[in-house]
């Protein structure tokens, strides 16, 4: 509807009231005004006609009607007040004014908006992550009662059954593990990560399928049908979301599985990377049931059972386990039984780093607010004359205050919009760089986070507004405004304001020091991590997972033998090797060992060691030094004497001061064969860089049974990407039923192992850099403001013969004083809270003096640089011009 038709409405006589009337006032303002005029004119005309009828002249009648009516403009004003749009009118004026103010000093506006945006955006995005991982309910019914049992990835099938039999404080106990297998479709094999679960797992989780059903009791026992439950993502991506999928067959690892269910979108267990679930084979007659320690146990605490009840149940459980099974001392499962909430089990490891990052982002936000407040304060001083004049000619204090708040709100809103755009645009990139252990895909910057960010805005705005307002409205009678007028329109600045501005900058510098200390601590820690001798050389090496589930033992051996031969002759490849677990990445495959001639190391005293099967070139490919004896040779084959290589630490422990060559050991993985030690290798960090090197026994690949998944390591000077492509087609050519799983360079393996410290370093360095920038702007702002305030004084002093160098020194010392105070306070604060960083640091003390020196020096340097420009301005003062200022 146009305005015209609106007034035609009125002519046709439609009645308006209430909301309609108010909306008209808002959107049909001009019509409302015209109608008000017309209404009052009608009144005055009728009134005049009344007096005319009583015999007054036209002019007198007119005058009399006006006299009786009173002030027309006031009536109009009051009528407008009744429309409820006064506040909006004022707001519009304030908004226009605020935008004009900002446009007048765009650099100030830019700095303020950018720093606030970084603070708001960073906090909003991190809040999103924290909310997603630590607050939002897990995709299971009432996840509070879900607990994970101690000794994870280490339970056997027979233990699971005993636990279920004995434990009484639970509504259900389930076991699961994760297994990579192949999906065979149209003659091609692709990698699928599956969860192998006991039948009641979904019931314990309280998770309902989107389609079909989940497992029922007995489906994990001998004679089971091979059944498969799909994740929503797998169903969509691999099967096109086919709703008729239930009952169809999929071939996994060469066996036909019947699809019985599809889980809803958003469901994951135990991590988003798992694409499908099938049942464990809990067959008491199988050796896996008795030997494979690979399960995680998960239970739901029965309603009404207190923590004490759970603990009592656990110790009963430990006793039962101890009675039934025989545990060696080194890994006695019955010691210290405990359970942890599922959320803590899943996210416990990322929680500290997230909290650290959100604390850092919050510090940055505080800095940004302090910075903007300092900037506003400086601007307010420049405008004190204007404000003083406006107060003097009768602008209400509240009106002035409201206008200043509007200005801050405009600033904060711009910053919030920029910050949200930043958070939204960079969320994926940001989340991708967080140490989130694969959960990043479950996160999104959804509306509660946006809402949270939007509530941050007024908060930030009011904080920003507080500083200048306190100064302006410090006393109720407006005395603080008087000096501005008394100064005859010249800019005068109160001491209190300078001090407030100074303290804001001190706070900024202080927080910057804290952030920079944190950043340099982490940087130095990462540096140390890179200096750790891992025992292997990652340079030039790549690794590919090969999943050969579909082949039998003979097929595997034939495939791996021909693969290693062909791969070794690819141009650019110097060494090609196979192993069962990749160093720095894959833990596990650890078992008890027996040592010939050491009966004291039997029974409960037996030692445990990692077990690795390798081909002869393994030690060359990863440059693992052979300290004594020899490496494996092609002659160490099936049927020849079973041999082994030990790492030097294990060898030293078993035979201190003696020659290990020729001694014999046995592992649980190599059956009852005694293995003769033919060599000693340098220790290797097999599972983690930060821990000690683990004991390991290497056995020749050729003398063991090939696994369904092995890892091919190639070393040389070929381009990794091209090489991976070549190997893929080689595998396809040799055996299409083998899938190539993860492919990676060894450098990346090391980087992934160091991911958490690297990523924390990235973010803290980012925050530290921003903090330095904000701090520099803050120092520059306050020093340069103080200089421009004192230009007259400097002019006079130069005219009286003061050395210009003295002026420089004076200005620099002003900046220096603020920065110095800030640095001292910051160092103190950082020292006091440094213990919070302990868990993130490696071989660097939280009070590492070098990091503190770096922070102090960096901020000191920045303080000097930020003061140099204003100092130069002060020393270049032209006395004749300065005296004419104002």
């Amino acid at each position, binding site marked *: 509807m146009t305005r015209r038709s609106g007034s035609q409405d009125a002519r046709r006589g439609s*009645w308006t009231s*209430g909301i309609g009337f108010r909306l008209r006032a808002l959107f049909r303002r001009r019509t409302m005004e015209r109608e008000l005029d017309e209404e009052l004119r*009608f*009144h005055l005309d009728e009134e005049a006609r009344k007096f005319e009828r009583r015999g007054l002249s036209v002019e007198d009648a007119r005058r009399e009607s006006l006299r009786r009516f009173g002030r027309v403009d006031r009536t109009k004003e*009051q009528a407008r007040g*009744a429309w409820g749009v006064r506040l909006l009118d004022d707001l519009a004026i304030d908004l226009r004014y605020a935008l004009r103010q900002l446009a007048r000093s765009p650099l100030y506006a830019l700095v303020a908006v950018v720093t606030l945006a970084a603070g708001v955006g960073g906090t909003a995005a991190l809040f999103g992550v924290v909310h997603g991982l630590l607050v939002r309910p897990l995709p299971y019914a009432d996840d509070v009662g879900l607990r994970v049992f101690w000794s994870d990835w280490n339970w056997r099938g027979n233990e699971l059954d005993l636990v279920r039999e004995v434990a009484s404080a639970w509504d259900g106990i389930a076991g699961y593990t994760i297994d990579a297998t192949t999906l065979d479709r149209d003659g091609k094999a692709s990698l699928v990560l599956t969860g192998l679960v006991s039948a009641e797992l979904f019931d314990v989780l309280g998770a309902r399928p989107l389609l079909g059903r989940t497992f029922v009791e007995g489906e994990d026992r001998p004679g089971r049908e091979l059944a498969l439950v799909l994740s929503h993502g797998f169903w969509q991506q691999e099967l096109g979301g086919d709703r008729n999928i239930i009952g169809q067959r999929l071939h996994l690892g060469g066996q036909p599985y019947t699809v019985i269910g599809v889980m809803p979108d958003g469901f994951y267990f135990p991590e988003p990377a798992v694409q499908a679930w099938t049942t464990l084979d809990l067959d008491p007659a199988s050796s896996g049931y008795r030997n494979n320690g690979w399960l995680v146990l998960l239970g739901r605490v029965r309603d009404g059972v207190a923590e004490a009840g759970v603990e009592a149940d656990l110790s009963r459980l430990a006793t039962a386990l101890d009675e039934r099974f025989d545990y060696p001392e080194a890994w006695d499962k019955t010691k210290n039984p405990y359970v942890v909430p599922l959320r803590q089990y899943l996210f416990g490891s990322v929680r500290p780093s997230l909290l650290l990052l959100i604390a850092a982002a919050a510090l940055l936000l505080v800095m940004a607010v302090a910075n903007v407040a300092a900037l506003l304060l400086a601007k307010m001083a420049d405008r004190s004359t204007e404000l003083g004049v406006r107060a003097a000619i009768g602008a209400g204090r509240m009106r002035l205050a409201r206008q200043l708040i509007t200005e801050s709100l405009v600033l904060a809103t711009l910053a919030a919009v920029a910050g949200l755009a930043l958070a939204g645009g960079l969320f994926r990139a940001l989340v991708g760089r967080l140490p989130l252990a694969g959960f990043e895909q479950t996160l999104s910057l959804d509306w509660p986070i946006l809402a949270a960010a939007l509530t941050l805005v007024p908060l930030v705005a009011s904080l920003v507004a507080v500083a200048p307002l306190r100064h302006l409205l410090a006393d109720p009678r407006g005395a603080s405004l008087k000096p501005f007028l008394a100064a005859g329109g010249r800019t005068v600045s109160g001491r209190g304001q300078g001090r407030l501005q100074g303290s804001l900058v001190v706070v900024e510098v202080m927080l910057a020091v804290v952030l920079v200390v944190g950043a340099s601590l982490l940087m130095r820690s990462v540096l140390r991590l890179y200096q750790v001798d891992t025992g292997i050389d990652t340079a030039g090496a790549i690794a590919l997972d090969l999943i050969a589930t579909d082949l039998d033992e003979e097929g595997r051996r034939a495939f791996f033998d021909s693969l290693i031969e062909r791969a070794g002759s690819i141009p650019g490849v110097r060494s090609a090797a196979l192993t069962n677990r990749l160093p720095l990445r894959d833990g596990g495959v650890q078992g008890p060992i027996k040592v010939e001639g050491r009966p004291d190391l039997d029974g409960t005293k037996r030692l445990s060691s990692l077990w690795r099967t390798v081909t002869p070139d393994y030690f060359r490919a990863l440059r693992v030094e052979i300290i004594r004896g020899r490496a494996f040779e092609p002659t160490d084959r099936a049927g020849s004497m079973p041999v082994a290589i030990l790492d030097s630490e294990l060898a030293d422990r078993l035979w201190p001061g003696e020659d290990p060559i020729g001694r014999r050991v046995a592992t649980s993985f190599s059956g009852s064969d005694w293995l003769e030690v033919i060599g000693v290798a340098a220790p290797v960090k097999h599972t983690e860089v930060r821990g000690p090197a683990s004991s390991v026994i290497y056995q020749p690949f050729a003398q063991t049974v090939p696994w369904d998944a092995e890892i091919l390591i190639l070393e040389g000077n070929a381009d990794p990407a091209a090489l991976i492509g070549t190997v893929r087609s080689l595998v396809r050519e040799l055996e299409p039923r083998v899938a190539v799983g993860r492919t990676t360079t060894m450098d990346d393996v090391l980087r992934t192992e160091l991911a958490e410290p690297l990523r924390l370093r990235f973010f803290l360095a980012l925050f530290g850099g921003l903090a330095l920038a904000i701090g520099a702007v803050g120092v520059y702002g306050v020093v340069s403001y103080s200089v421009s305030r004192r230009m007259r004084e400097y002019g006079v002093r130069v005219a009286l013969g003061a050395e210009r160098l003295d002026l420089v020194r004076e200005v620099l010392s002003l900046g220096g004083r603020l920065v110095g105070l800030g640095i001292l306070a910051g160092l103190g604060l950082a020292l006091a809270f440094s213990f919070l960083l302990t868990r993130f640091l490696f071989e660097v003390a939280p009070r590492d003096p070098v990091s503190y020196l770096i922070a102090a020096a960096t901020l000191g340097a920045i303080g000097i640089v930020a003061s140099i420009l204003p100092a130069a301005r002060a020393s270049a003062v032209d006395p004749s011009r300065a005296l004419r200022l104002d």
Partner: protein
Amino acid sequence: MPKRPDMIQGTLDLLILKLLSLEPMHGWGLSESIQQLSDDVLRVNQGSLYPALHRLTASGWIESSWKTTESSRRARFYRLTPSGRRELARIEGHWRRLAGAVEQILQAT
């Protein structure tokens, strides 16, 4: 002319609602009616009549529309809405109780 009593706050709203409950009227007609019906005792401050009318309209108790008068001029007419009728009953009762109470006190001997 004797000094007219000041309007008690809220009284103007009551008068407007009461008169509009009788028939739709424009602003000038209202001010005339108030004077005539009160035998010239109550004289509405004409300037304050319109803000009151607009306030009552915004509250939804009365509604307005442009109509043509007998003298074929366009004028804004106001009439009572159903919720205005309830409001009138409410403040009328309130007023009667108030007036009764004052009357009781004045009659005390």
